[in-house]
């Protein structure tokens, strides 16, 4: 079979990766551009789908003073882009026993007293690739509104970009995780049906059925599995 010759040359752009210029095809994501340029990514890459937050990246564009922050797998390269990966943001997660802490502002402040250093500069919000209202979440934390913190940070990927940029050195994503855990443990409405189901199981509702399954041979199990009832779509 004859090889099809592709004659169309892709449009190329110049990007500067950690100071070094590379020609890469336009339209690539920053992540793919890095690989095109020959970098083999071991850290700073994960799901490639914008969900895991591993590929935090900062970049600048020519003629613009702003330092942009985004996920490398979600952002396409632009001509003249200066960029660097931030595969990891050092931040300490304080230890606590979720069963022993109160769902109140004092818990957040006791574990993360640096929250009180916030000067409302809003740099965190500007650096969030998820477009979260990060500063509003810090402010909600300061006034003890745990539910609001949990709500505002629900889509946080823990990429660490806000944490890297914060002049008050707040480890945001650890605070958010604590707030969401407090919310889940103490404030969110309890799922009554789930509670009842667990109770039924503990009272032996499925015991007999389970024991019957345990006594079956591998072959019998296979037959049973094949003959299982499947709900119509």
């Amino acid at each position, binding site marked *: 079979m004859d090889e099809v010759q592709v004659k169309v040359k892709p449009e190329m752009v110049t990007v500067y990766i950690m100071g070094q210029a590379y020609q890469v095809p336009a339209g690539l994501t920053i992540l793919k551009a890095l690989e095109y340029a020959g970098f083999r990514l071991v850290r700073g890459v994960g799901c490639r789908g914008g969900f895991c937050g591993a590929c935090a990246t900062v970049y600048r564009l020519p003629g613009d003073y702003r330092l942009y922050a985004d996920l490398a797998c979600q952002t396409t390269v632009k001509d003249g882009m200066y960029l660097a990966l931030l595969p990891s943001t050092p931040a300490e997660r304080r230890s606590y026993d979720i069963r022993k802490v109160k769902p109140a502002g004092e818990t957040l402040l006791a574990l993360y007293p640096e929250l009180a250093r*916030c*000067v*409302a*500069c809003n740099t965190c919000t500007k650096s969030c690739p998820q477009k979260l209202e990060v500063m509003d979440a810090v*402010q909600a934390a300061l006034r*003890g509104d745990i539910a609001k913190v949990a709500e505002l940070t629900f889509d946080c990927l823990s990429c660490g970009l806000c944490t890297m940029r914060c002049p008050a050195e707040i480890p945001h994503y650890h605070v958010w995780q604590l707030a969401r855990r407090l919310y889940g443990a103490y404030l969110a409405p309890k799922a009554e049906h789930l509670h009842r189901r667990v109770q039924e199981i503990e009272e032996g509702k499925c015991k007999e059925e389970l024991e019957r399954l345990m006594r079956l041979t591998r072959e019998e199990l296979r037959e049973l599995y094949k003959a299982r009832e499947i709900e119509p779509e």
Partner: protein
Amino acid sequence: MKRVLYFPGCALKDQAQEYERATLAALAKLGYKVEELPRWNCCGTVYSLAQDDLMRHVGPVRNLIRVQEAGEEKLLTLCAMCYNTLHRSAEFVNDPENLRRINAFMDDEEDYRGGVRVLHLVQFLAEEIGEEDLSRAMVRPLEGLRLGAYYGCTLLRPKEVGVDDPDRPEIMERILQALGAEPVLFPERVECCGAYLTVTRPDVVRERAGEILLSAAEAGAQALLTVCPLCKFNLEERRPLGAPKLLVYYVGEALAWALGTQEIPEELAKSLTGVMS
């Protein structure tokens, strides 16, 4: 209903919720639709005295921008510390150079144009509403109650933002009088409670709290009224053994008693002499 924009501050949403609850109910009774400032952030407490530490003014000025965005020129505060910080930052950016630099830094907001007036509750009651209207709205005069108004620092000092004469204030006494109570003057009413030393030097604050409580009790006060969550904490939690056990309330609570939106605490109700309606 007249609309007024209001800045709660962190303490009023956490440790001092009773101050907010009482005051908002009372202001509604007085015909005010009190609207919480949208997307407010911490006032910036404590006000930074470093002239070149511009970053510390970003937070307070951002709140003033929210007032501007809401199309208002006045901002009501209840906490004395928030009042102080916001007011002083508003003064700080009256300097065009300071304003230019703050605006240049905040490239994510519309420019602050200046002109927002930060008001404290006691000014709002005494000047905006006035003693006559206060008296008229009263349903349960506080007659027989001897109340000491404890000003502390941040409502009065520095004098550029003080709500009254920093040495001889009478604005809270005028409000108490309008509500039918007997204001009690005492020497320590404008002295500092020790403020944040409560964290590192509780011994100093204990001494201060003792002096204040003793001074008020000797002058015959049955309870103290304050406008500051930190003063209240220090007077209650740092009271030395043996010092008079004076109850401490927020001014907004006394307002709510007189306007009938809140019950008078039992400890005080028994000394009322006025006719209850």
